[in-house]
């Protein structure tokens, strides 16, 4: 998947009103809460068959850190 497609899909799934960049810290978003975390887990699981757990959710900071967690090899 292209990084840009991933980011716009993420923005749509979590219904984020600001524009997401790779440098955006997800935890700083007004929309970030436990339901956003669920939507994120669901989105990543559907797109990449990768299951994020609570620990990995805790460690996420920026969109880039999320991409690294999923695995850079999964993006082109």
């Amino acid at each position, binding site marked *: 998947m292209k990084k840009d497609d991933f980011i716009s899909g993420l923005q749509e799934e979590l*219904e984020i009103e600001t524009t997401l960049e790779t440098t955006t810290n997800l935890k700083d978003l007004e929309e970030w809460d*436990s*339901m956003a*975390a669920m*939507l994120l887990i*669901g989105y990543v699981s559907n797109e990449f068959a990768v299951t994020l*757990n609570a*620990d990995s959710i*805790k460690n996420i900071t920026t969109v880039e850190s999320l991409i690294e967690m999923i695995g850079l090899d999964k993006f082109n």
Partner: protein
Amino acid sequence: MYQKFSGVKISAIASCVPKNVIENDFFGEILSGKELRLFEKTVGIKERRWVSKDVTASDLGYKAAVDLLENYDLDKSEIRCLIFLSQTPDYKIPFTSNILQDRLKLNKEILCLDINAGCAGFIQGLSTSFALAKSLKKGGKVLFIIAETLSKILSKKDRSTTMLFGDGAAAVLIENNEDSKVESFFNFFSDGQNADAIEIPDGGYRNILTQNSFEVTVDDKGNEKNKLNLKMDGPRVFDFTLREIAPSIELLLEQSRIKKSDIDFFLLHQSNRFIIRQIANKLEVGSEKMLININEFGNTSGVSIPLLITSNSDKLKDHSNVLMSGYGSGLNWGNCVLNLSETKIFSLKIY
């Protein structure tokens, strides 16, 4: 622990929920419109039912039991054991099962037993009932009443619990019957290391009730609760269910040598639709086989599986090989494979 039973069956099952419907807009004070919408989209709850102040879990359980006893042809004296399973009993002392024994006019030659168990309670209570029924003479019966009014222990200003839970009850008749063709299989797991993941901190005898128990504290997300309210470490419980449940179900199928494709329906504890779907994905079970009614009742703790049975009686009539899975406080989790072809399922009653 793994168990196998033959010669024991669930003869009948009835259920009851309170009449007061609480819709999601009720929580408008603690959640914005968008948050409520996302809550519906992820957790899947649209409404739940809460009892009024003067109704207890045992009142709901009594109603369900009366419905069962009135509509199922049986001699009450054949009920040798009455189990009441709940985390919201009438009293600390005595057993609520004793109170129900009198209310239901059951024989005095009976074993009354209360079990304090949470979201895995239906599977735990069934296993106990099956073991007791197996030890009885042919025709001996166990009446298992499971009832919960978690609305009474929630802080209405705690977003991590209050919208999630609903009230309800079910009555299940388990019978020793050597002629029965059905076999049943159970497995159980416990993790006491995470005992504090779901708890009421005060009011037992480790932390006895004091003035301090009523003091309201506010966490970093603005949730308010006192030490007599239900407290849940959501992320820890969430991780536990995604990690443990699917493999434990696979293990039961392996232990009992049952093919996944022979299971007609999967009835998972209704805690969170997102979690149920994630477990379904892991098990590679299609959504048509995964029954869901969390939208109507929320998480009713151990009552959620019997409510799922009674609200899907039409489907279960001809497709009665079911796998049930309960998981929650303790942490405890357990699964069973049952055949409901000899089970009379009564429609849901409103109290």
